């Protein structure tokens, strides 16, 4: 198991590395954008930092052979600074070096000029996590409970109602759900705020502001779990060992609790664990519609057509990729851990 786990983790590392490298080259091969700030001092500081980090060269005169000129600034002493981008491959190795030695993933150019992208992510991550964690805490138990209910009452009206609702909610795109929720709960009734409140608003408003995001995140999640649990439970319920358990004299409840649920939970638990990894990612749609300052809306903001902030975008992409890979590993490993018969990708 240990060897298998290590192998999986190593493989994920390599995959992540390759993806990030690809992303780096793809993003850096786009037309470079300089820093956007009204203050010359900020811009100057940014470029000097970039020179120190090795992404930009500083020349005292115009050197057309060096490629794209990012900006020309005359400093207070009257010295000319011509800032040129270094070659991408050079930038790449410096980038790797900076990550390893300084944990510097790049500087923001638009959102908060010359601030480390990691710091920007750090200030926004708690908001995303707080919304996500509440939604996971609500949706997982509720989803599992509904799934069990539907599975046990299979082919009754309870099951049909639950299954139909699940089908409906799983099909409706999340932005439609959010739009409708905002329309009904914020605009029509006026119970809830229609956008994420600023820090100066009252505690009540800020607490109420969680309702729409949590609801809209939970709907899909609850439906997913309900469907999953129901399917698993139905499969287990028709299995032979459950029949054996009943013939041995267990009551129906005993058989369900001791045999059916236990076995049904083997594939469910890993996905719950993976869901908890998922709280570190922000929902782009929800966050941008409800203007939640999380990392999902940061992605959209960094991708602004007029002024894209590629460095922040890249870190955000890295986070989403890492979360995906981590969730995948956790899913497979916990499968193998819970049920030794299943060891994904292991040699037969």
């Amino acid at each position, binding site marked *: 198991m240990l060897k298998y786990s290590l192998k999986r983790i190593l493989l994920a590392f390599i995959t992540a590395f390759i993806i990030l490298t690809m992303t780096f080259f793809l993003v850096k091969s786009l037309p470079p954008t300089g820093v956007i700030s*009204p203050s010359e001092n900020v811009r100057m500081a940014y470029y000097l930092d970039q020179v120190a980090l090795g992404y930009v060269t500083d020349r005292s005169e115009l050197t057309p052979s060096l490629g794209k000129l990012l900006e020309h600034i005359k400093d207070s002493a009257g010295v000319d600074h011509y800032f040129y981008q270094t070659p991408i491959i050079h930038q790449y190795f410096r980038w790797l070096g900076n990550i390893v030695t300084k944990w510097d993933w790049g500087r923001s150019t638009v959102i908060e000029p010359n601030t480390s992208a990691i710091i920007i992510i750090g200030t926004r991550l708690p908001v995303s996590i707080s919304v996500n964690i509440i939604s996971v805490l609500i949706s997982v138990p509720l989803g599992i409970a509904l799934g069990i209910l539907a599975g046990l009452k299979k082919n009754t009206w309870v099951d049909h109602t639950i299954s139909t609702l699940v089908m409906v909610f799983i099909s409706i795109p999340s932005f439609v759900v959010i*739009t409708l929720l905002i329309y009904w709960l914020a605009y029509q009734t*006026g119970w809830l705020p229609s*956008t994420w409140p600023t*820090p100066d608003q009252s505690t009540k408003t800020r607490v109420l502001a969680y309702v729409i995001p949590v609801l809209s995140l939970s709907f899909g999640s609850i439906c997913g779990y309900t469907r999953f649990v129901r399917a698993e439970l139905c499969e287990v319920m028709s299995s032979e060992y459950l029949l054996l358990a009943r013939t041995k004299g267990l009551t129906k409840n005993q058989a369900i609790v001791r045999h059916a649920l236990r076995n049904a939970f083997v594939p469910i638990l890993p996905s719950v664990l993976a869901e908890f990894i998922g709280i570190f990612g922000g929902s782009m749609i929800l966050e941008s519609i409800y203007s939640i300052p999380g990392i999902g809306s940061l992605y959209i903001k960094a991708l602004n057509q007029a002024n894209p902030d590629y460095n922040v975008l890249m870190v955000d992409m890295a986070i989403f990729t890492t979360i995906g890979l981590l969730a*995948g590993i956790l899913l497979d490993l916990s499968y193998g851990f819970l049920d030794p018969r299943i060891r994904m990708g292991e040699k037969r």
Partner: protein
Amino acid sequence: MKNDKDFELKNNLPEVVNDPEICEEDFKLVDADERVHEQKFSTKPTTFLKDSMKRFSKNKSSVVAAGILGFLLLLSFIVPVVSTADVSTSHPELRYLEPKLFNAGTGFWDGTKKWSNIATDTSLMPDASTDEDKEKYWFPSPVDFKANGIIKGSKKFSAPTYTSKASEYGKDGYMQIGYYDTFTGDYISFSTFETDDFNVKVKDTDPSFELDVSDPENKPTWLTVFDVYDEAKLKTLEGNSYSIPENYEQGECALFFNFYKTVDGKQVLASVQLTEYASVHNIGSAIDSLKQEKINIAKIIAESPEVEGRTSFDVVSFSVRIKNLDNKAHTCVLLKSIGFESESTNTSTLRIFRNISMSDATQEMMQAYQTDSSKYNYKYWFCDGGNSSVRKLYMGKVIYCSFTYDSYEAMLGSFSLDTFAISKLEQYYRNKYIDYLAVSTLDPVTHKYKLDENSFRFTILNAKKCPIREALTKDNFKVNEDNGEIRCINVPITGYKYYGYSSMPKFLFGTDKTGRDMLKYVFEGLRFSLVLGILTFLVCFLFGLVYGAISGYFGGTVDLVMERFTDILSGVPWIVVMTLVVIHLGSNFWTFALALCLTGWIGTASTTRTQFYRFRGREYVLASRTLGANDARLIARHILPNAMGTIVTGAVLMIPSVIFSEATISYLGLGLRNLPSLGVILSRNQAELMNNPHLLLFPAMVIALLMISFNLFGNGLRDAINPSLKGEGE
């Protein structure tokens, strides 16, 4: 075994021949002449498709879904062709019409809309000079609701009883009047601060608000309250009555500058008091007194300890705070609503304030202040205009009204046009709708042109078709005294006739802000989404099939390399792949389809690979190989037909998922922009949710219906063609 029997028979033969009881006749084959194998089966054989069909039709919900899907499909191809509405050009006369199916007055889907509690500005109402008139005609801002609309229904007058939305504030409670702006990501509304008079420099593209204290000419930077408001395009501040209740003589007010700063990693609101608190009798005189007192605002702000040497601010506001020194709570009544004119959007619309909620500041503020005054560095409250942080109200009286608004009547019904092109009249004359004669003559005495009153005539010949409702009189014609040109004014017309419709048009889904027929637009979008979905599905399916087949059939190193490739590709979140492709190759139909295809095939490929792994070692494959079949034949003729059922099963739900992805990414504004897909339509109308929900509800409904029916249909189809379920439930 067979041979053994033959052998037994042979051995026994001599004995049998000798037996007289058994003759040679007995050994004749009974059915020797009949050709049994040519007889037809009494039961019909079932084909794979028939069996699938049978199982599919058993699943009622899938059948219904298929019906709905077919209906939507049909509509998406018929509606854009049949509908004559023009969705590519702008039709301002048709903008924001409500969805209408039934005639007005039925109360449901009839092109009318109930508005309730709309803050109304009575001064903007035409035809309302007396208070009595004002109560009769409640028009909200004429910019938002065309003033000539027929407004029916109940009228609510919250003044002078002040019962509905008045709130109180008590001792040490503050009320804030002011312009407030948030920096929420778009570079908007800061342009409104731009001015050269005061060294408050804000450029459109700058996210920060800079105060330049180092004035080269050492000219003091004067900024008065009134000017701040004026520059901020705070409308309707002038000439209004700001009144605080009469007994409110102890109140004091002062001007504040507010901004956000970071304390311990948290954004907190800080403010700099710009003036001393001055006693006020009412806010109007307070503002006047503040105006007279010239304040060097930049200097005060720069020298304030709160500012700590900062020169730029992200979110700023100027405000007048009115402090209550009384021990009593006072009723605060909103006297008038105000709106901000946003320069960046260039709309002169006054925003409507709906459901103004003035939370009771007294309780909340006082409680907070008493428990820990240091913790709460704000001692005043914002009057929040409902929902957006940008909208603030100052103290005043708000008149709310509720009414039913018929947008069709307003835009296309009977109203009068201020200026009417004379060429139109000539056109009507040629069409024999009207007969008229209006000529100008030169007065020989004054040498000025005037209307020739003697020859003037005007009759409506074809009242059915003529857009002009009543015969025009001489008053409707104005003559330019100098050159004799004739103009037409205040012409009463019937809107729809004027715009060229023979009867009042009906828009089932309403129209958007450029007058697009949403019905046609939505179904065009649906058609586009469907075409994109099916196209992507075909490409992904074929590519995934080939890729998976090669990977699974050959195995070994080929498989290993190909698998690592899919591992990496599937490791990147699809949204990342899509954005990278779109920003690299631009946003058009083909790059978008490519972006969708890039990750879409992985699912099919992995199912195919698994199936090929399963079947490639089977005996029939081996047999065929021994007979000399090459790889292509083995793949295409032997393995693929067996694997197909499972592969299709896995791929059936790809179309809805592609449509879903497309809608999502377009909705986020990362994908298509100028093509009519459902996601683009929704994304475009996102901002209209509050005032024109139909622009979002209809496309949302269509996309939801599409997804539900597609998923149900797909599930049914999957169960029906799933080879492992074949023959089940017979």
